[in-house]
């Protein structure tokens, strides 16, 4: 993408006024997507994002500048802007880059952009048609087939020069069911870190039918009663509970500056002993996986909580400087316009000791959350909320009628202790996580779990 001698020159310029470290991140990202609404392909999205971000450190102070001009002149100008903001010292130094090649743990066979938009449209049509045909109450279906081809290059004044190419594919279908002037919706949006061969294992028709099924369940459901209940949360995207309730509070971005409820708690029992939680960016082909993070550090399997004891945080390069701890390969960003920060990759609760059937049978009354929507959290207080997109009341150990409109509200420290049963069907679901460094793909996951008490918002 950029010649080595230019990178060296640019890095020298960035540290010419006293910075003790500089890094350049350059990318070319093709984003190819097909959008279907109302049975018709309405739009084909086709964008080539191309630019670089240059960052310098002076201790724990950072300076960051971006440019969409990847020419030598454009990059030198950008590095000059960084140097000017760092200070007015005059320093000469040299940078010698040594290129590093890393194994690709996430190979892709069929690059989305190499397949004609008409062919990609056919895959999406099949999925959306299946949603339409699922039930007469389905009144509207829309869908997206997204393909991302992301090539990055990272070089820094420690001599690192490393690149990666990462392919992602995802199909998202939303179905709306209508009855008596009322709408209810359902969605399904699986994806993976691979090419269009993704659909060899996941049929588009299954995606469409699942979205339609949830919409129909909700259409025929009553509102969820509100109150404090025992709740069982199903596997896969149910893991959003850990992502929100705890994951964000374990990111160096908030821990290192004392803005997290989890700061200073390493080695402490912060969760029920049945809870072991991991952030693992190395899972082959997973939606949240990458070979290297956006600072050039290989991703790792990072055990965050082991048997309820806090073992580690997610630490990026700046966090590492601030906290005096090892980087964990989690410095991520949406694209070159964002400065990287500590983020999650594939974050999940490990399988536990309880049988799934025992979990439901143990509940005299409560709520079974089969599908979850997104959520949000305040890392300082740990206060979180998330939406239940498919829920059922539980009575006498049996799953009963569907209810809609529920949300779960609580604080991370409470809920971690209140997870008192952990099942054995660990699976991950795909999401986009938004934070300071933009929107990035992350997996959330868990087996079926039981939370002894939690506030359910409903009406």
């Amino acid at each position, binding site marked *: 993408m950029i010649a080595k001698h230019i990178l060296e020159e640019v890095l020298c310029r960035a540290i010419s006024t006293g910075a003790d470290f500089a890094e350049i991140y350059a990318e070319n990202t093709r984003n190819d997507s097909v959008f279907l609404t109302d049975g018709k392909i309405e739009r084909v999205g086709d964008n080539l994002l191309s630019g670089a971000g240059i960052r310098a450190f002076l201790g724990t102070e950072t300076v960051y500048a*971006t440019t969409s001009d990847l020419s030598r002149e454009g990059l030198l100008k950008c590095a000059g802007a960084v140097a000017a903001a760092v200070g007015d010292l005059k320093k000469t130094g040299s940078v010698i880059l040594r290129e590093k090649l890393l194994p690709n743990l996430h190979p892709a066979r069929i690059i989305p952009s190499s397949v004609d938009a008409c062919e990609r449209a056919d895959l999406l049509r099949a999925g959306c048609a299946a949603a339409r045909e699922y039930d007469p109450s389905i009144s509207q279906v829309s869908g997206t087939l997204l393909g991302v081809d992301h090539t990055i290059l990272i070089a820094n004044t420690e001599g690192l020069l490393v690149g990666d190419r990462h392919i992602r594919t995802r199909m998202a279908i939303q179905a709306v069911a209508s009855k008596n002037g009322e709408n209810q919706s359902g969605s399904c949006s699986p994806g993976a870190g691979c090419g269009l061969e993704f659909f060899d294992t996941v049929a588009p028709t299954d995606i469409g039918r699942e979205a339609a099924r949830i919409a129909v369940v909700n259409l025929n459901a009553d509102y969820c009663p509100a109150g404090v209940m025992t709740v069982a949360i199903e596997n896969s995207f149910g893991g959003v509970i850990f992502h929100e309730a705890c994951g964000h509070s374990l990111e160096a971005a908030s821990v290192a500056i*004392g803005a997290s409820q989890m700061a200073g708690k390493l080695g402490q029992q912060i969760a029920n002993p049945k809870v072991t939680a991991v952030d693992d960016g190395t899972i082959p082909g997973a939606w949240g996986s990458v070979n290297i993070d956006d600072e050039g550090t290989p991703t790792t399997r990072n055990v965050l909580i082991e048997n309820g004891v806090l073992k580690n945080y997610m630490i990026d390069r700046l966090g590492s400087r601030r906290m005096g701890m090892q980087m964990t390969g989690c410095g991520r960003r949406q694209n070159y316009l964002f400065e990287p920060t500590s983020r999650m990759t594939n974050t999940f609760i490990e399988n536990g000791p309880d049988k799934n059937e025992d979990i439901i049978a143990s509940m005299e009354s409560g709520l079974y959350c089969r599908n979850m929507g*997104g959520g949000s959290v305040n890392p300082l207080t740990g206060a979180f909320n998330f939406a239940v997109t498919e829920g059922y009341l539980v009575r006498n150990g049996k799953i009963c009628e569907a209810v809609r409109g529920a949300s779960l509200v609580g604080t991370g420290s409470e809920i971690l202790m209140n997870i008192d049963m952990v099942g054995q069907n660990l699976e991950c679901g795909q999401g986009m996580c938004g934070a300071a460094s933009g929107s990035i793909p992350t997996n959330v996951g868990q087996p079926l779990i039981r939370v002894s008490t939690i506030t359910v918002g409903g009406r």
Partner: protein
Amino acid sequence: MTFEQVKKALSAAARRAGLKEYEIYWESEENLSVETLKDTVSAFSSGNARGVCFRCIADGHMGVASGELMTDDALEELVRRAVSNARAIDTDDKPILFAGSPHYEQVTSPEPVLADPAALRHLALDLQKATYAQSDKVGDGTQSYTVSTVCETGLYNSNGLSLTRKIGGSGALVFAIVRQGDEARDASYALPGSAMEELAELPRIAVSRALDQFGAVPVKSGKYDVVFSGEVFREFLATFSPVFSAKQAQLGLSLLAGKEGSAIAAPCVSLIDDPMRAGSPMQTAFDGEGVATSRRAVVENGVLNTLLYDLTTAARAGRESTGNGHRGGYASPVTISPYHFSLAAGADRQEDLFAAAPDGIYLTKCKGFHAGANPVTGDFSIDSEGFRIRDGKRAEPIRGFTVAGNFFDLLKSVERVGNTILWQFSTGLTAFGSPDLLVRGVSVAGE
């Protein structure tokens, strides 16, 4: 390459490809931001990005491709990709490249300029110092931020359209963390402005809001009369604004479909969309398709006057676009969006609203709208914070509860509206605003 050079290169490539109708949309943005931590600048960033979107009518459909590479080869490739992408489209809509409106309003705000980087750093440090000076309870993690952006847009097409715009602004945000014993609370507040005189209130507001939350208690579940603060209700407007999109209505995804001309809200509710709000640096005379914008009452005294239309949805409905075709960035598609969209102010002072809800709740913070609210159904169940109102006065802080209901019911249940609109600080063309308002009988789930 400049916009003129890109225009020339793309037009030549379009002619070589035999295209008769095409459009070039260009954006170039510069931004600066400063972040402070304790008493130092912890991060400074400056961004410079530009991109171009090429749209063309090929085989009777609209093909699109966009990118940031501005070499001759890359632009030639952009045209080729747009033509190829058009082949996959199969909508029945006739693609439209607009020739221009007869009249465009004049923008009244002064042309924005990017703030001086050194001044922006000093401003952030001054705010940070002022924030710590508010209280000895202000502690680690407290951050002050300043930002400045300028964005230039050019829109040109083969049908004679040629428009440019420059928007931008500066502002600041204070995120205050306060601690007392084991309890930690935070609050953030943002205001537009680039000088301490304009932003003097910012540290005080952020810190007092955080301090006010100490000792917050749960609230009993039940139905309450709720005073929504303007800051909370504008988030409801932002979340549910897609229901006013003609596209959502035409797809059956807005329950306002077929309701134009009908009462959909209480008579005290008027919703105004104003692309030229006085004093805003984000004024625009044209939308993302080149159509002239104009101020309108979308809802007037409870009656839905009109939905918001772009060219495609207007053609489907056999009417004119309202000038609400929006492009969120050079690579974003045309969607439908309002500009400065607000609930019109009423007559009540805040104390009047509290007096009318003597045993109610004053809702000051709601979060998680992306998860807890659904514009298709109108349903919401939102994690909230606020205060009890007792004897018509603001009383103890409350937290850890949800408010639930349906947006369309909420619009009908508004009983009184406050007299001051609180606007979001926005760096884009869309911003939401609202005064405080009173709604009776809202479902609250707490303990």
